[in-house]
C-alpha cells in the first residue's frame, strides 16, 4: 500500500439526499431512511429536552428537604413524566431510530431499509404516541412512575393512565417496526462480499437490539393493554380485590423492561466500537467476541427480569435463579469493555470529540455495569433496591452510557449527515462539561442510596440534604453540557466547514459515499473485499478544511 500523503480540499456533492427534493411534503412523505432518521432526530431531541426540563424541576425540588417548591402530586407527575418521556420517547428510539436508521443501510451497502414504507409508518406511529404523551402532559400529567405498578395505576390514581398507556404502546409498536426492518435488512440486503464476519460492530449491536425490540415489546403492549382494560372494565387480572395478582404485572412489565434496558445500551456499545477503532486507527481487538457478546447480551437479557423484584414478594428460589442468571449477562458486557480498552493498546490515538465521548462512555459504563452487579447480588439488593442507588446505577448506564454514546455517535456521523463539520473547540468543551456534570450529579446518589434515601421522594429527612444539593449542582452543570451541542450543531448547519466524504479517514461503507450521501446512498453498488476496521492499509490523506 502506498503511503504517499495527498492533500484534498473537501467539496460538497452537487446532488445529495437533502437537496434532492424540497418542501414539507418531501419530508413528511419521504421513504428515504436518511430523511426519516432526521425526522426522528428532531422528534427525540424535542423529547430529550422536555424530559430534561422535568429532571431540572425534580432536582430543584430536591435542593431542600421539605417539599416546598411543588405539591407532592406535582412532584410525582414530574418524575413520572421524566421517566416515561426519557425511556419510551427518547432512550428506546435514540440511537437505533436516528443514527441506526441513517447509517445502518449505508453500512450494509443497501439503497434503503427493506421496508421503507414501514420505516416511515414507524415514525408516524411514534409521533401518534408522542401526541398521546403530550396530551397527557397538557391535560394534567400522570403520576404512575414510568413503571406503572398495579394496583396503584389500575385502581387508585385519578390521572390519565389510559392515555399515556396508549401512547407508550404506540411508541412500542414504532420500535417493533424499526427492529423488524433492521433484522430483515441485515439478513437480506447486505452488499456483495459483506459476510456476517465483515459486518461493522454497529450493525451487530443494532441487530441484537432489534431482536429484543421484536421479542420483548409485544409483551409490554399486551401488559399495558391489560392495565388499561383493568382500569376501564375491572377485569381482575391485576386487581387483588377481584382476585388478581399485582405482582404478575411486574413480571410481565419487566419481561419487557429489563431487556429494554439493553435496547437502551446495546446500540451505544455499537457506536463505541466504531469510535474507539477509528480514533485509535486500529482494528478492533477480538472482533468475534465483541460481535457475539452483543447477541449474548440480547439473549441473556431475557432471562433476568425478576432481579427487579427480589423484595417484591417473589419466591426465594426463583429470586436465586434470577440472581444467578443476572451475573451471566454481566460477563459479555465486561468482555466488551476489556476489548475496547485492548483496542487502544498500541494504537495511534487522537482525541477528537467523538473519542472523548467514547472514553467517557467506557469509564461511566464500567461504573454503571459494576454497580449493576451490586444490584444483582441478592443480599445487597435488599438494602439498595428502590433507593437512589438504583437511580444512580441506571443513570450511569442510560445517561453516562447511552446518551454519551449517542452524542459521540452524533458528532462522529454529523459530517456524514449534514456534510459539514461541527466546531471542534466548543464540542470538546461540551464533552468535558458533560462528563464532570454527570459525575457530580449522579455519584452522590450512590451514597444517598446506600444511606437509604428511597426513590420518588418529594420530601426527605434533612440528613440527606448535602448530597442532594451536590447532585442538583451537578445537574445544572450537566444541563449546560447538553445545551451546548444543540447550539453549535445548529450553527454548524450553516457555518460549519465542508466535511468531505471521509473526514475521519474511517473505514466502513458509509464513508465511501459522499457527505451527505445521495438519495440512493451509492452511485454504484459497493463490493466488500476486506474485513471491517482494516485500519493501517488506508492511504494517508490530509484533509484541509
Amino acid at each position: 500500500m502506498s503511503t504517499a500523503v495527498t492533500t484534498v480540499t473537501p467539496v460538497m456533492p452537487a446532488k445529495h439526499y437533502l437537496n434532492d427534493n424540497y418542501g414539507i411534503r418531501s419530508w413528511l412523505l419521504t421513504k428515504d431512511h436518511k430523511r426519516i432518521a432526521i425526522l426522528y432526530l428532531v422528534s427525540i431531541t424535542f423529547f430529550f429536552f422536555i424530559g430534561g426540563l422535568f429532571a431540572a424541576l425534580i432536582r430543584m425540588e430536591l435542593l431542600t428537604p421539605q417539599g416546598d417548591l411543588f405539591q407532592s402530586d406535582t412532584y410525582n407527575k414530574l418524575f413520572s413524566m421524566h421517566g416515561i418521556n426519557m425511556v419510551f420517547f427518547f432512550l428506546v428510539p435514540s440511537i437505533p431510530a436516528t443514527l441506526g436508521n441513517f447509517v445502518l443501510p449505508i453500512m450494509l451497502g443497501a439503497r434503503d431499509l427493506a421496508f421503507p414504507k414501514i420505516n416511515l409508518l414507524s415514525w408516524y406511529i411514534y409521533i401518534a404516541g408522542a401526541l398521546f404523551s403530550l396530551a397527557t402532559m397538557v391535560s394534567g400529567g400522570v403520576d404512575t412512575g414510568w413503571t406503572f405498578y398495579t394496583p396503584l395505576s389500575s385502581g387508585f390514581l385519578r390521572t390519565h393512565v389510559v392515555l399515556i398507556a396508549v401512547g407508550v404502546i404506540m411508541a412500542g409498536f414504532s420500535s417493533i417496526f424499526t427492529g423488524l426492518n433492521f433484522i430483515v435488512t441485515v439478513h437480506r440486503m447486505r452488499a456483495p462480499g459483506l459476510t456476517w464476519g465483515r459486518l461493522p460492530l454497529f450493525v451487530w449491536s443494532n441487530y441484537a437490539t432489534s431482536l429484543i425490540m421484536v421479542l420483548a415489546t409485544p409483551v409490554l403492549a399486551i401488559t399495558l393493554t391489560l392495565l388499561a382494560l383493568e382500569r376501564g372494565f375491572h377485569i381482575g387480572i391485576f386487581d387483588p380485590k377481584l382476585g388478581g395478582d399485582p405482582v404478575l404485572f411486574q413480571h410481565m412489565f419487566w419481561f419487557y423492561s429489563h431487556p429494554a434496558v439493553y435496547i437502551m445500551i446495546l446500540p451505544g456499545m455499537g457506536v463505541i466500537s466504531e469510535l474507539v477503532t477509528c480514533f485509535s486507527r486500529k482494528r478492533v481487538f477480538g472482533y468475534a467476541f465483541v460481535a457475539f457478546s452483543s447477541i449474548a447480551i440480547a439473549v441473556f437479557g431475557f432471562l433476568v427480569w425478576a432481579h427487579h423484584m427480589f423484595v417484591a414478594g417473589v419466591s426465594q428460589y426463583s429470586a436465586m435463579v434470577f440472581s444467578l442468571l443476572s451475573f451471566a449477562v454481566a460477563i459479555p458486557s465486561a468482555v466488551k469493555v476489556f476489548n475496547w480498552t485492548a483496542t487502544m493498546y498500541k494504537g495511534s490515538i487522537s482525541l477528537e470529540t467523538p473519542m472523548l465521548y467514547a472514553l467517557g462512555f467506557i469509564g461511566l459504563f464500567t461504573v454503571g455495569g459494576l454497580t449493576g452487579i451490586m444490584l444483582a447480588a441478592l443480599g445487597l439488593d435488599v438494602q439498595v433496591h428502590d433507593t437512589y442507588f438504583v437511580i444512580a446505577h441506571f443513570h450511569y448506564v442510560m445517561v453516562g452510557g447511552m446518551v454519551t454514546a449517542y452524542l459521540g455517535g452524533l458528532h462522529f456521523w454529523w459530517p456524514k449527515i449534514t456534510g459539514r463539520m461541527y466546531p471542534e473547540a466548543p464540542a470538546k468543551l461540551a464533552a468535558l462539561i458533560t462528563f464532570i456534570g454527570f459525575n457530580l450529579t449522579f455519584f452522590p446518589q450512590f451514597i444517598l442510596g446506600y444511606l437509604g434515601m428511597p426513590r420518588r421522594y418529594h420530601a426527605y429527612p434533612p440528613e440527606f440534604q448535602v448530597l442532594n444539593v451536590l447532585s442538583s449542582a451537578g445537574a445544572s452543570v450537566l444541563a449546560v453540557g447538553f445545551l451546548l451541542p444543540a447550539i453549535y450543531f445548529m450553527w454548524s448547519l450553516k457555518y460549519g466547514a465542508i466535511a468531505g466524504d471521509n473526514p475521519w479517514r474511517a473505514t466502513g461503507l458509509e464513508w465511501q459515499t459522499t457527505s451527505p450521501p445521495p438519495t440512493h446512498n451509492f452511485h454504484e453498488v459497493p463490493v466488500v473485499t476486506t474485513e471491517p476496521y482494516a485500519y493501517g492499509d488506508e492511504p494517508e490523506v490530509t484533509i484541509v478544511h
Partner: protein
Amino acid sequence: MQFQLPLFPEQASKVAGQVDAFYLFLVLITTFFSLLIAVLILFFIVKYRQSPDRKAVQIHGSTLLEIVWTVIPLGISMVIFIWGAVLYYHIENPPNNSLEIYGVAKQWMWKFQHPGGQREINSLHVPIGRPVKVTLISQDVIHDFFVPAFRVKQDVLPNRYVYSWFTPTKPGTYHLFCSQYCGTNHSAMIGEVVVMQPEDYAEWLASGKAEGSLASQGEKLFQEFSCTTCHRPDSGARGPNLQGLYGRPVRLTDNRVVVADDNYIRESILSPNAKVVAGFQPIMPTFQGVVSEEGLIQITEYIKHMSQQESEPINNRSTPTEIRDNEVPTIQQELQQQGNTRPANPPEKKK
C-alpha cells in the same frame, strides 16, 4: 463539622454488619475494575498518542486473553452470587422464636399491632437483642417496609402476608420508609422504629392501652362470627378442628398437602372453598368484605394460639418474654411420618 457526610447508615441490627461487609467487598471490586480501566485508558492515551512517526500496530485479538477475561469475571461473580444468596437467605427467613408483630400498611400510614394488643401508628417499638418478625399486609396498593438502619426491605402486598425480620442491636430511633411508590403522599409515609432495652420495652408495652391481647381480640371475633358453630373439636363438627392447626401440613380434598400458615388461614377465611381440608364439605361462606385486615390478623393470631398447649391461658401472651419457642416440624418431617401417622389435622369423619 457543620455538615455530616456519612457514608453508611447506622448499623442497628445483627445483619447490618454483614450487609456492610458485603457492600464493602463489592465497592472494592467495583473500584478496582473501574480504576483498572480508567488507568489503562489514560495510560494508553498518553503512551500511544497519535504522532507522525509512529503507526498503529494492528492486532486482531487473542483468544487466550478473551478466555481470561471471561473466566475471571465469571469466577468473581459466582463468589458474589453465593455470598449474596446466603446473606439473602438469612435476611429473608426469620427464626422460629421471633417476637411477632403485625403491620398493616395503607395510603399513607403504617399501623402496627403487638401480640399484647397494643397498637401504634407510624411508629414501631421493638426490644433490643431478640429477633422480631413483622408480618405485613397492605390494605390498598403495594407499599414497602424499609428500615435502612436494619438493612431490611420488603414490599408489602395487598391480599397476601409477607414478612420482614431483624434483630435490633442498638437502642435509638430509626427511619421507617415506604420505598415502593404508593401515590400522592408516598414521601410522607415515613415512620420510625424505636429500639429499646427489653425492660423499657416491657414498660412501654405495659403503658399502652390494649383491649386485651391480639389473640383474645381474635377470640372475640371468632365468637362474633359464630365460627365455633362449625369449627369444634368434637366429632360432629362440620368444619375442621382448628386446635393445633397452625404451622402443620394439611391434606386437601384434591390430595394436595399445604402448610397451614398465615396466608393459608387468611385465604381460607376469605375464599374458603379454594383449599378445603380433606373429608369436609365446602360449606363455609366467604368473609370477604366482612372482616377487616386487622380483624383477620387477630383471628389468625387466635388460631395460632389455639395451636399451643390447652393449658396455656390465652391472655398470657401479652409480654414478649413469654413467646413460645415453637418447634413446628418441617413439611419434610411431616411427610415422612405420613406413612404411619396421619397429617396433623386428620379428618375424623368421612362425608
